């Protein structure tokens, strides 16, 4: 009797175990080429010097960084070329211990000298590096080689965003001997990295191909034989390729609109997984603070109160976005003000009757007959639609805007020079997942995207403190204070919200995770294709 009990229990256990085993991870399959597309021709391939996403798409899998976002769990930053790291007690010295036995794609051995060469280049004051360089230059004093497999970064002050910056896909490590040979990394021939894929072919305007790096330093990876990106610049063509199954995923800029997602669903139904995701991009409405009418804080306040963020997200982003928040809790966790608090603030709260009435009053106080302004917008993506809705909202409070559309480049020229009164909409994509980015880029005095030329010493002071605060809890407090201040002040840029979009993956694509920024998730290191 007992024997049969033990036997049946054992059988039960075995069945249970094997069942759970089957329900657990599928075994990754080797082989296959992943097809997708790049929305623009990258042109120049220097990962340290260029800034568009199209360049990152072309090169991501070729290189490795010291650190990167974990392909299995992109909210974490883990070591890539650096096996481990230590920080000095004053948080000003970071020591990275590098992997051994790593080879470049041309067979040369990787060592700390390559890391020093890379970061010396990026940090060189005469070298223009709008992504990696602009992040690291204010923070890093020097990079030194300790020994062949150890590198040390000396910071100017205990910089909180340092790790996020080093983990960025823009701060990848290049080979010293390649930099010496070619001088820069612009050419296809110079694309020698340590990443999971080798740069196989670049047919300008047509296609970019990667092939598997058989000597990749993580044994067993990558699973794919290669990655192929078609260069498709027209939206109808991109959509047609998706519907015909010629591309396997859409994870680039701009995201699909809901109508396109619906069409795709009709065309391919069960074969694809369509989902909504954040692109870590903030939707801003700018006012020039040194020119009438918006040099008057009352007018800025009026705009702040009148803009219906929820309507903007619902109609122009088709619901794919988070209205009002200056920091998105889903991206930066506790650093963001709780949404409950944000949604009660004037300007954001619904219904808007009180706020609109107050806004009208403020406008009438200074312009009893209303005011006419010229509203700039770049004719890109969905910007025009957004701009039209923003102007319709402002018309309710007596601000009559005429839309002035600019061709993309001309628009940036105008913004940079300050030749505008009002920018109806301009997005800013975050490069790292660090909460301080928004403030350093948009609201600080003289910041790169502070088109409205706003200057508020309190904001500068808080931003500076947040940058240098090593203690995480104290840092959170600083950013909370900053958000509260900016959301209630009459700032240069009204936050309409954080932008999301629709994307799709062919169901055969497995283990593709989106990272917190739009720049960090195209290495395809651990992605595989099912049958």
């Amino acid at each position, binding site marked *: 009797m007992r024997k049969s009990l033990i036997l049946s229990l054992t059988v039960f256990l075995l069945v249970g175990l094997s069942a759970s085993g089957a329900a657990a991870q599928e075994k990754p399959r080797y082989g296959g080429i992943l097809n997708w597309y790049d929305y623009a021709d990258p042109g120049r391939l220097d990962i340290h010097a260029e*800034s568009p996403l199209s360049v990152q798409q072309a090169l991501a899998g070729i290189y490795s960084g010291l650190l990167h976002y974990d392909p299995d769990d992109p909210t974490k930053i883990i070591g890539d070329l650096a096996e481990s790291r230590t920080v000095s007690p004053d948080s000003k010295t970071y020591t990275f211990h590098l992997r051994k036995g790593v080879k470049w794609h041309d067979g040369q051995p990787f060592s700390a000298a390559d890391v020093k060469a890379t970061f010396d280049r990026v940090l060189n004051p005469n070298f*223009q590096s709008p992504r990696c360089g602009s992040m690291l230059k204010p923070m890093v004093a020097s990079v030194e080689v300790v020994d062949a497999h150890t590198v040390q970064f000396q910071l100017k002050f205990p910089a909180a965003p340092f790790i996020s910056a080093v983990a960025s896909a823009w701060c990848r490590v290049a080979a010293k001997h390649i930099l010496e040979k070619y001088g820069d990394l612009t*050419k296809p021939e110079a694309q020698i990295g340590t990443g999971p894929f080798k740069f196989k072919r670049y047919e*300008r*305007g047509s296609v970019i191909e990667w092939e598997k790096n058989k000597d990749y330093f993580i044994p067993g990876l990558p699973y794919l034989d290669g990655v192929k990106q078609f260069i498709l610049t027209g939206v109808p*063509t991109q959509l047609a390729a998706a519907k015909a199954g010629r591309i396997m995923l859409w994870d680039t800029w701009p995201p699909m609109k809901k109508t396109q997602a619906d069409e795709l669903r009709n065309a391919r139904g069960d074969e694809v997984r369509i989902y909504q995701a954040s692109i870590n991009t903030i939707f801003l409405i700018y006012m020039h603070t040194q020119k009438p009418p918006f040099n008057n804080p009352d007018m800025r306040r009026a705009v702040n109160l009148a803009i219906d963020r929820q309507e903007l997200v619902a109609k122009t982003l088709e619901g794919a976005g988070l209205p009002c928040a200056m920091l998105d809790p889903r991206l930066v966790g506790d650093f963001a003000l709780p949404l409950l608090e944000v949604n009660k603030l004037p300007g954001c709260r619904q219904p808007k009757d009180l706020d609109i009435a107050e806004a009208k009053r403020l406008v009438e106080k200074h312009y009893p007959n209303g005011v006419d302004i010229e509203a700039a917008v770049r004719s890109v993506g969905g910007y025009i639609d957004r701009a039209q809705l923003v102007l319709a909202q402002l018309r309710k409070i007596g601000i009559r805007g005429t839309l002035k559309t600019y061709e993309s*480049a001309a628009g940036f020229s105008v913004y940079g020079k300050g030749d505008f009164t009002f920018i109806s909409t301009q997005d800013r994509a975050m490069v790292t997942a660090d909460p301080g980015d928004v403030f350093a880029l948009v609201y600080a005095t003289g910041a*790169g995207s502070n088109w409205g030329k706003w200057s508020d010493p309190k904001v500068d002071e808080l931003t500076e403190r947040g940058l240098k605060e090593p203690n995480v809890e104290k840092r959170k407090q600083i950013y909370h204070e900053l958000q509260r201040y900016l959301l209630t002040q009459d700032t240069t840029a009204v936050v309409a919200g954080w932008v999301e979009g629709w994307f799709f993956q062919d169901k055969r694509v497995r283990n593709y995770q989106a990272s917190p920024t739009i720049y960090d998730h195209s290495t395809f290191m651990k992605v595989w294709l099912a049958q």
Partner: protein
Amino acid sequence: MRKYVARRLLLFVPTLLGASILIFVLMRLVPGDIAEILVYQTGTESSAVQQKQIQQIRDELGLNRPVVVQYLAWLGNALRGDFGYSYTQRRPVTDILKERFPRSMELAFLTIVVALIWAIPLGVISAVRQNTWADYLVRVVSISGLSLPIFFTGVLILYGLVRFFRYLPPLEFVAFVDSPAENLKQLIWPTLAQAYYISAPITRLTRSQMLEVIRHDYVRTARAKGLAERAVVYRHALGNSLLPVITFIGWWGGRLLGGIVIMEIIFAIPGMGTALVQAVSYRDYPTVQAIIFVMALVYLTINLFVDLMYGWLDPRIRYA
């Protein structure tokens, strides 16, 4: 004749120069330059650094020199076959031209051939059966080709292929010499879209030329001699009608090149059109300058050839 040829050749060069000056000036009038784009588009550096970087880029590229100096420098180099370096691709513009020019020319050539094959017989029918229902039908069909903007036709074709036939033309360009089949599979669709569009004026012109010629004496004589109607039409009338049609194509070539820009974008063909649009967006002056120069050169060469042909055929000029 010699004087005629000499005059035509002499006029060729200043016209080409004039076109290059015109586009040079136009591009400088367009707001924003590559320096501002590169720096402001990322918007990450502080504004003080931005100003410095813009000046630095402009110095590197020689954009701070007076415009006249820039033009003369460009001209000097261009005459030696050096079109400079592309701002967006940092490689010689001549390389870009060598890559892209044959592709666009292939598309243009195919479009013209298909358009002629389709349009000329239609024009003949329309002329021979003037004012009958056949004539009306031809005119309606060909005018409807003109009635839709080509980008629309192109997008419709792409959409229709995917929606109803689950078929998408190849997205990767393969040169004709590498694989004629793959090449044509991609190029056939923009060719059809554009050929349909430009066939209307060709049909119309063929028709009017034929109508004029048909009335002439020698045609009546041929008819009187009892030659088969078809021989009359095709051998005598058509032959003499073709010349103005060919002139017309040379003249219309300009419009064709513009339409190619749009077709290349829709059908993902990496030709001069897409290179041009990208170059204009990024204010890549050397590339724009060179591509326009080549397009103008092609257009003027065709016209020169046609002019010379006319001169040779017109006895008043040939024997002057």
